[in-house]
């Protein structure tokens, strides 16, 4: 059976077919569609796969580890920066090891289409010392999910599954099959899960001991494929590839770039880079889709090549490792040497250029062109909130509004230009607090409802305990809007949460951000700025996108 699927959907269906029992995730582009697919899939429903959104990536990671503890297969999904949020649990899950298979999916966003950085999650996999899968195609994504769960259970370790935007959000036909049963309930019994120092030390030694098996699995993996070079005739009339030498062969002279019988260029192509390399028609390629790196295959490629180009989307993770494997005398090019751009995603053009292929001839860029950045929807409640904030802030020359992650980050752009910062989930409240501690007045934070429960509550508690002079605006549109309108963990609980954290009732206000209320809202903001302590104002009005969907039903 063939189905047209997004890369994310292929991952999701692959996990369902692999016998998944639960997916745990917080929405984040480009990973969101994985969990949404499972939530809406009839087979997943029939199998009772747990799929509700989590409050943040850390709660997701820990809950998935708990499901693994109980013997079942669990999947955690997040965008790359979510790995930072769950890093504590993630790294330690490699120390405890797993019982039921545990796959951690990180969707990286090179070029930052919808992100604050382009960190490469493969560093996290190396850091935690666990295997990484990195599919090249939607089909591979589907098939690999099952293998990832099997390897996880075989090794007793979590497996990291890395995709990038251009796979996550690209569709292709995928052959579906190989449905597996879900695991039986079978809780773990050992003491290895209790990471007291004495036990953790033993567990760490055990993790180190598994490295060889991980390396062997990658070496034997069909996803790490050294392609046969078609018969070619070299400069000296011999068939290329005839003369396979071992790396370190001392007959080879350093700097000799006319090695007899060698193909001029060997290419290591990781994940979707393989597609661009194939598009350009490169020969003599090692496709890498499973880590740790297949060292033998890399040495074999090096022996039959004069130099190596490493093509990888994201940061130069493999390029650095290949340098370490082959030594300083072997010429290796990639993002670090400038052969490929140091930042931004790969595409068929920059990869072809690195392979020495002349660029395609298109038309020159148009003259009558302007950038069209995204903007807040017409009628969006955040618009009214910014109108009110700007009006009051204009009365205070020292005012700063610290922003956060969500649709309302667009308040940084014209026509509002309200924000002074946007760093990470929750940083609005804590940065306002720190700035207020330093004497900044008025320090205003604006944060969305979903971001507040994700990472804003603890910062608010700090501010309350410190009696910091900040005004917090929780702009509540009753959904996680930026990623397409997923359920928001705190809906209908915000007043109770704030009061519970110690916000004084007289300094907690809920308002309806519509134009006729503008005067009342600005009066409240003004009053609370003047209050020396923590105030919370909650403008609450449904997101226009979800409102439209709800009114259709």
């Amino acid at each position, binding site marked *: 059976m063939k189905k047209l699927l997004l890369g994310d959907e292929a991952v999701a269906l692959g996990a369902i077919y692999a016998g998944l029992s639960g997916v745990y995730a917080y929405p984040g582009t480009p990973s969101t569609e994985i969990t949404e697919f499972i939530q809406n899939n009839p087979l997943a429903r029939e199998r009772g796969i747990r799929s509700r959104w989590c409050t943040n990536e850390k709660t997701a990671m820990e809950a998935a580890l708990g499901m693994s503890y109980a013997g079942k297969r669990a999947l955690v999904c997040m965008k790359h920066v979510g790995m930072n949020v769950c890093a504590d649990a993630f790294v330690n899950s490699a120390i405890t090891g797993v019982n039921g298979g545990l796959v951690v999916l990180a969707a990286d966003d090179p070029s930052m289409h919808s992100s604050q950085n382009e960190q490469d999650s493969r560093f996290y996999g190396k850091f935690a010392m666990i295997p990484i899968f990195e599919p090249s195609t939607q089909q591979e994504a589907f098939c690999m999910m099952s293998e990832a769960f099997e390897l996880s259970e075989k090794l007793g370790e979590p497996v990291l599954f890395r995709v990038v935007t251009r796979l996550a959000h690209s569709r*292709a036909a995928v052959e579906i099959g190989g449905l597996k049963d879900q695991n039986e309930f079978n809780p773990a019994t050992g003491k290895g899960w209790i990471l007291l120092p004495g036990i953790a030390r033993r567990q760490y030694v055990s993790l180190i001991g598994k490295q060889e098996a991980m390396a062997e699995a990658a070496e034997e993996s069909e996803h790490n494929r050294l392609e046969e070079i078609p018969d070619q005739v070299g400069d000296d009339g011999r068939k290329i590839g005839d003369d396979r030498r071992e790396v370190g062969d001392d007959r080879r002279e350093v700097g000799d770039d006319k090695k007899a019988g060698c193909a001029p260029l060997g290419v290591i192509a990781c994940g979707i880079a393989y597609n661009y390399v194939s598009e350009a028609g490169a020969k003599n390629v090692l496709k890498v889709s499973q880590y740790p790196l297949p060292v033998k295959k890399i040495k074999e490629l090096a022996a039959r090549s004069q130099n190596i180009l490493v093509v990888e989307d994201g940061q130069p993770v493999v390029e650095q490792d290949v340098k370490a494997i082959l030594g300083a005398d072997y010429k290796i090019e990639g993002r670090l040497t400038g052969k490929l751009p140091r930042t931004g995603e790969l595409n068929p053009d920059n990869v072809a250029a690195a392979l020495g292929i002349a660029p395609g001839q298109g038309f020159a860029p148009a003259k009558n062109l302007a950038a*069209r950045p995204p903007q807040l929807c017409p009628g969006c409640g955040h618009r009214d909130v910014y109108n009110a904030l700007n009006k009051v802030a204009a009365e205070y020359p020292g005012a700063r509004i610290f922003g956060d992650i969500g649709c309302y980050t667009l308040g940084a752009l014209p026509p509002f230009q309200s924000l002074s910062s946007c760093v990470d989930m929750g940083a609005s409240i804590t940065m306002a607090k720190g700035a207020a501690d330093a004497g900044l007045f008025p320090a205003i934070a604006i944060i969305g409802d979903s971001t507040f429960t994700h990472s804003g509550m603890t910062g608010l508690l700090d501010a309350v305990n410190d009696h910091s002079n900040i005004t917090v605006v929780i702009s509540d549109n009753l959904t996680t809007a930026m990623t397409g309108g997923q359920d928001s963990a705190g809906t209908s609980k915000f007043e109770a949460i704030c009061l519970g954290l110690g916000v004084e009732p007289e300094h907690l206000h809920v308002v309806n951000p519509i134009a006729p209320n503008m005067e009342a809202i600005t009066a409240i903001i003004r009053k609370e700025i003047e209050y020396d302590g923590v105030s919370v104002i909650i403008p609450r009005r449904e997101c226009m996108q979800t409102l439209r969907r709800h009114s259709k039903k």
Partner: protein
Amino acid sequence: MKTDIILCGVGGQGILSIATVIGEAATQAGLNLKQAEVHGMSQRGGDVQSDLRLSTDPIHSDLIPKGHADLIISMEPMEALRYIPFLDADGTIVTSSKPFVNIPDYPDAEAVLAELDSLPHVHKFDIESLAREAGNPKGANMALLGMAARFMGILSAQQLRDAIGRIFAAKGDAIVEANCKCFDLGYGLQTD
């Protein structure tokens, strides 16, 4: 045989629905297909684009290399211009002629249309008015698809029309009929 298509417009104009219909038609026809979309932040009123590659042979890259697109299908004239570096020297542009102005620095509309006209194979029409007059303002994207059907090469108009039926079937016969009508009107246009 291959057809590389760039679909573009402004978030909310129904670009991804066009992609879905072409994808369905291609899958039914047994063609290979890759379709890269942009989700997330850019869907909020910003420029939206999708690379759609159809081929009888296997397709490697999800993205279209520069100078390789056979067809640009655009819901907005300036957005069509944005992607001309990807258009083949002999490629075709099918676009709405009606500027969507939601930015303060939108270039002179006459200049945008004139620059389009300076390119070799450009077909533009006010599909929004066409769809509105047909009583289905939301069908502008299907009218545009109808216009583009003449230049698709690898898929026939009938295959695309059938795909509209399957994609919108869940929304009822009236929606299918209205969308097919817009498609037919677009297909029937003799644009220059």
